[in-house]
């Protein structure tokens, strides 16, 4: 399994043609206390760069864009009852959704953990 990162502060775990998507620890810290996450429905077709989810913190609503294109196979139902999982475990139990990649070539150009860490430090 390989983990990729985007400049929009999302992470993507890729296992074959299946990808799991969430937001990074840096992103959750920037957003603050998360009170609601609106997730895409199973079967939804997501296009890279288009709205995929909405994260509601106390102060604002923020869009999460699909880092890659694909069809949603599962949304993290644990976030319905406990949206704060995104704060406490953003890169683990606080994942957002899983999808089947429709264009694996889109993974090219995404960052690995070292590159993302270096980029965040530069912000």
């Amino acid at each position: 399994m390989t983990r990729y990162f985007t400049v929009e502060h999302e992470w993507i775990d890729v296992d074959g043609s299946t990808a799991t998507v969430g937001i990074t620890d840096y992103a959750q810290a920037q957003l603050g206390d998360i009170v609601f996450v609106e997730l895409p429905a199973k079967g939804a077709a997501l296009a890279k760069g288009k709205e995929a989810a909405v994260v509601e913190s106390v102060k604002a609503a923020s869009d999460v864009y699909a880092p890659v294109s694909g069809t949603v196979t599962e949304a993290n139902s644990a976030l319905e009852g406990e949206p704060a999982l995104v704060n406490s475990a953003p890169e683990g139990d606080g994942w957002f959704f899983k999808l089947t990649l429709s264009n694996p070539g889109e993974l090219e150009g995404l960052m690995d953990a070292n590159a993302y860490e270096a980029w965040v430090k530069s912000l």
Partner: protein
Amino acid sequence: MSETHEIEEGATPAALPLDAWHRARGARMVEFAGYHMPIQYEGIIAEHLWTRESAGLFDVSHMGQLMFSGDDEAALEDALEALLPANIKGLAEGKQAYSILLNEEGGALDDLMITRTPTGFYMVVNGAVKWDDIGHIREHLPDAFTMNHMEDRDLLALQGPKAVDALKRVVPGVDKLYFMEAGSFLWGHEPLWVSRSGYTGEDGYEISVPAAHVAALADALCAQPEVKPIGLGARDSLRLEAGLPLYGHDLDATIDPIQASLGFAVPKRRRDGGFLGAARVLASIANGPPSKRIGLKVEGRMPAREGALIYMGDQQVGVVTSGGFSPSLQIPIAMGYVSAAHAALGTALEIDVRGKRLAAIVTAMPFVPNTYVRKGAAK
């Protein structure tokens, strides 16, 4: 990820005297009202709940502090009553009133607090519009009266049920004030102007302090075990729970005080007019306003925010002007304007959020009961 900031863009934000103080305490700073301001320290929910159960210190030095004076006190009262719908003549020394600055058309230019001091009147206005307020007031206030913008003073708010315990240890005597009373107190050799009021729905104080001493006072207050610094984020969620309007969002130049459900700011003695904008305000009292500011409890967990449209069936009947998740109630709450026919308590409405219809019920405000310590009330 893109964040929808509710922070107004300023050209070059200025640093307030406590800027370094906030940063040293881990504050995340944002632009607000032309200044760098702390939006949060440890987190909005934790800060919000701390204020509700203990005491929170807020830096509100962006707000405008104005002092009005003149040789002829009765003439100054008349001049202020020509500007404001408040009962200035009936305001005793050391008493504070909430009022609304109106334009000629009866629309709200700002909301404010005014207090009679031993030498005149002290006013606190919102930071985001203070320069416009000053221009408007100067234009309408006769030249015989002085308006001093006290830029050499900062303003702190200490809010919460334990604010009184913490503050009286630092500034003895403040516990003698009741809600909406104010007076001069000495902190060491420094004169403070302290009022028992605030913007959270909790008991608490607002403290005007010479800017040169604000950091030392903030340190002295945060050294009290009850007190933590609180950012603008929690200030907003606290005032929303308290049902208090935020100027520029829940109140603007198109809205009159009656429409804003702030009729108490136009006391009986002033309901024969004689203030700027009175024609519309009196008509609004007589005929009822076309729309009203109301509170809404929203079903589910998804917050409805400013700009969301409010529906009764297929008909749009209003718009949300402030909304978010209530940390104290653990539900989404909102305030907004709906047409008068749909403003009654208990009315079932719907709010459109990103194409979803959320059920919402018109609810009395405050959403969270206030804990003001009023004179004459049973303790």
